[in-house]
């Protein structure tokens, strides 16, 4: 520091101008310059002002005025430098146009089928189920025979199958994963198997040759239809809200006995009848039942000792009902205007 405080003011002024030129356009550096000159502990101008009290009163007045003038200059200089750098001017008290659009961070979306699948996986992982996977190209054995659907069985007509050159077929349901899992695991077990399945359906608003299923299988001691019903209700509540109810209606699937169709009370109208539930108050969700003893015996389980339930439902169907999607083809068209609507849907 010089003996002449006024010269000090001039020096600080020119130093500031030089530094401001150096950092032009970079808001963070401009903020650094603020600290360098106005910082409370080390700011150069702050330090000079601290010396004022030691000066004789005659000098104090002139220097005080010069220093304060410089302070204003520095603040203005910083503010305009920040503004032209596009950074915040809040610290200087200068207003910016906060109504200018914020920088766009376009977040991508998970596909609605993924959202539903992950939601179901989470529900069942939480209940201690293991998530299993299996091939989409299957043999006739695992897709049909092992599921109590022998060759020439009329039940094969229920599912129009896509066959592959060189052998094999595209699985018509995810049920073969149940067989594969039981073959490699001793009971008891609790699994779900989500995945794609295929049928030779011409695409229309409600049919797609590719669709997604999730199946659950629980085998243990004394497992009953009551366990099935409770599990379905738990899943439905978590997917559709606390008020939904489930019902079982007798139905037929060769790999379960007793067999049932399961419905969920309409979560839109609470069962009063609306467009979503086609005025019935109920939404058909999938098939369920107690694992057929022939299936258990086929994988070497003692059907006297072990019983189990299984159910399956369409992920596409759940997505369509949950998000009010009227045409299944939208799920496979990948129109960005469709996909974008699922931003935040997993929250």
């Amino acid at each position, binding site marked *: 520091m010089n003996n002449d405080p006024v010269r000090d003011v001039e020096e600080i002024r020119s130093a500031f101008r030089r530094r401001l030129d150096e950092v032009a356009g970079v808001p963070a550096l401009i903020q650094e310059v603020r600290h360098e000159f106005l910082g409370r502990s080390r700011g150069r101008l702050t330090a000079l002002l601290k010396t004022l009290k030691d000066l004789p009163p005659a000098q104090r007045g002139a220097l005080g005025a010069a220093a304060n003038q410089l302070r204003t200059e520095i603040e203005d200089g910083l503010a305009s430098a920040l503004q032209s750098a596009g950074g915040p001017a809040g610290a200087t008290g200068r207003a910016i146009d906060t109504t200018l659009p914020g920088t766009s961070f376009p977040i991508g*979306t998970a596909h609605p089928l993924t959202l539903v699948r992950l939601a179901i996986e989470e529900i069942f992982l939480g209940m201690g189920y293991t998530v299993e996977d299996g091939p989409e190209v299957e043999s006739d054995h695992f897709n049909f025979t092992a599921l109590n659907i022998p060759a020439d069985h009329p039940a094969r007509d229920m599912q129009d199958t*896509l066959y592959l050159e060189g*052998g094999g077929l595209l699985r018509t349901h995810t049920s073969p994963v149940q067989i594969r899992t039981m073959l490699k695991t001793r009971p008891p077990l609790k699994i779900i198997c989500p995945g794609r399945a295929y049928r030779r359906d011409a695409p229309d608003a409600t049919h797609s040759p590719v669709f997604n299923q999730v199946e659950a299988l629980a085998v243990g001691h004394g*497992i009953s239809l009551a366990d099935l019903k409770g599990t379905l209700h738990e899943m439905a509540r978590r997917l559709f809200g606390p008020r939904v109810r489930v019902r079982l209606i007798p139905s037929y699937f060769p790999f379960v006995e007793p067999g049932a169709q399961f419905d969920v009370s309409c979560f839109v109208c609470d069962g009063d009848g609306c467009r979503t539930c086609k005025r019935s108050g109920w939404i058909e969700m999938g098939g369920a039942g107690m694992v057929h003893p022939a299936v258990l015996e086929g994988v070497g389980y003692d059907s006297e000792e072990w019983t189990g339930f299984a159910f399956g439902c369409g992920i596409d169907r759940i997505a369509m009902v949950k998000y009010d999607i009227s045409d299944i083809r939208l799920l496979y068209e990948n129109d960005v205007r469709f996909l974008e609507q699922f931003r935040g849907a997993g929250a």
Partner: protein
Amino acid sequence: MKFSLEWIREFVETTAEPDEVAVHLTARGLAVESFETAHNDTILEIEMFTNRPDCMNHYGVARELAAALAHPLCPYPGTVSEDGKAEAAGSQASVAIEEGDLCGRYTSRIVRGVKVGPSPDWLARRLLALGMRPVNNVVDATNYVLWEFGQPLHAFDLKTLAGRKIIVRKAHRGEALTTLDGIRRTLDPAMLVIADASHAVALAGVMGGAPTMVTEATTDLLLESAHFSPSSVRRTARSLGLSTDASYRFERGADIEASVPALNRAASLITEIAGGSVSPGVLEARTRAFVPRSIALRTRRVWSLLGLSAGAGGNTVASGNSVADGDRTIGDVLTRLQFVVTQGKGSLTVEVPSHRLDIEREEDLIEEVGRSLGYDAIPERLPLIPGSGGVERRGHRRETAFRGALQAAGVHEASTTPFVSAASDWTLRQRLSAEEPAIEPIGIENPIALDQEVLRTTLLPGLIGAVAHNINRGTREVRLFEIGRTFRRGTPPPPPHELRKHPPAPPVEETVSLALALSGAARPISWLDPARDVTFWDIKGLVSAVMAAGGLEPVFAGLPTSEALAPGAAARVDVRGEPIGRIGGLSQSARDRYGIKQEVFVAELSLSALWPVPSEGVSFEPLPRFPAVSRDLSLIIPASREYRDIERTIAGVAPERIASVTLFDRFAGEMLPAGKIGAGVRIVFQDPEKTLTSEEINEMLDRIVAALGREMDATLRDSTGRP
């Protein structure tokens, strides 16, 4: 399947309204999908399951309704008055079965002196209401009985049967038959036929023949009521592409004991509406006796499988308040369904009636009890199964990390179908190295569309199709990814031990892949930043970032050329020395195939190949204690030099003191000599042990400039950050 409520009510007395009937039947598993009332009758549309052929007729539905309402079921009117004065049927014709395995029973009656004509109104109306076209009174009567009792029948013109003989045999090689629909069909020896002394006259259980059919000239009939094996009828119907009401029922299983009552009912109905008289006696050939199945039903097993408790307290079945009452309830509901029940201690012996072919074992009876009591009565609970807790699917965590990073980068997840044309798949697939065997797609035998005849070997056809779809609809900015399976000919991994005794897996290799496509602007238009379109370096940077999020470090290497990616703008992605994918700009020819004009950058990575690759572990490094200093160099370098070498040269000067090298500017232009480009590089210096002095930094900069000049032919344009 359609049913007339009025007709059902002939067998069960009830005043229940149609909606009430619908509720009862639905709760028992005969789902009434709709009903419509017209002309004093209600037509119910009921969903029928293949395992319940016994319900595919009005008497069968009446049986269920009677059980539901606990009302009596009228006995089936399966009797007929014979003409005692007429010649016995047995001396007018004969029946014989040659194929006992395929035909369990063949019964016949002879009706003489009928007058063939239109059916009376009441009968024609009933058939019309079910969607059947009335033909004549004789044929209509047989159809009526089919819909009433479920037994398919056929009427032959007796006089046209050579030798007045019926023989159930296999077709002769080269034998032909013109069926009732007027089509001449060549039969194969696997088909079961009904023949007279010389020719096949009907396809057993499927359709009759034209030469022996009932016409207006017919006066004498031979009525057939038989029982054919389901698989035989199914094979014949399938190989001829023919499905009839008769074959539909035989395929699902007919009641072998229904033959004679149905025959009697039809004969009686014919004499009522077409006149004539029934010759005494039934012609019958039988190879299979009906032995009722007897099943032991443990009542404890019933309650435990249904999750109901028989005794008092808890969830008690309708009327039961003790175990004995509960057991009685089981017996009652089964008896109402015409099971013959003998009560034992703790178990019942249940004899299955002939029409219930679906009841084979204890569990089947438990379902009968369950659906009779109603599934609504079953309580809810969660299974108590010991276990280790939920385990996620293989690859789930990395997939979630990838998905999260991609979403953060503004990429939307797509879902495309795996059915593609062989041509587009061929264009877009690509081997990652010269050593990789040729990729062979799997053809679909019965594709949904002619141009979707193979399974994708790459995710790109679907994803690029989606890009084109969006561009064509005016969305120019498209950022999509898909995680899905691809398929190629290959040897599946050897089956695990537990699958060894099962049939081998098809020769297909399935891969879980991740594909990305970026096209259009790199970021949304903004008042702060200039606009630009996506480039190769965007896809490269995105793939690096996504893989880093999955705990992986990609290395980009050269790639064999292909149709798919623009030559010179493609790279292979390696992880730990293994090729796992590719990135690049879509070639002009590939874009042309999809009609895309703007540039598209794609990447495809095999997630399956990454399953065995562990994530790069994280081991915390102490934060640097001494300050970093950054200096920028502005270089002029020959355009032929690769940036990677510049970076290596710089870092090589003082590997332990150069913390990072970042390219922040790259330009070409008139101010530069031909063949040269300008590059701005920021170098960050940092020493782990001390604060670097200006002298030390300047010394390193000098050495860097010298090394760049020597090795890269680079010169300094000017320098910034130097004193």
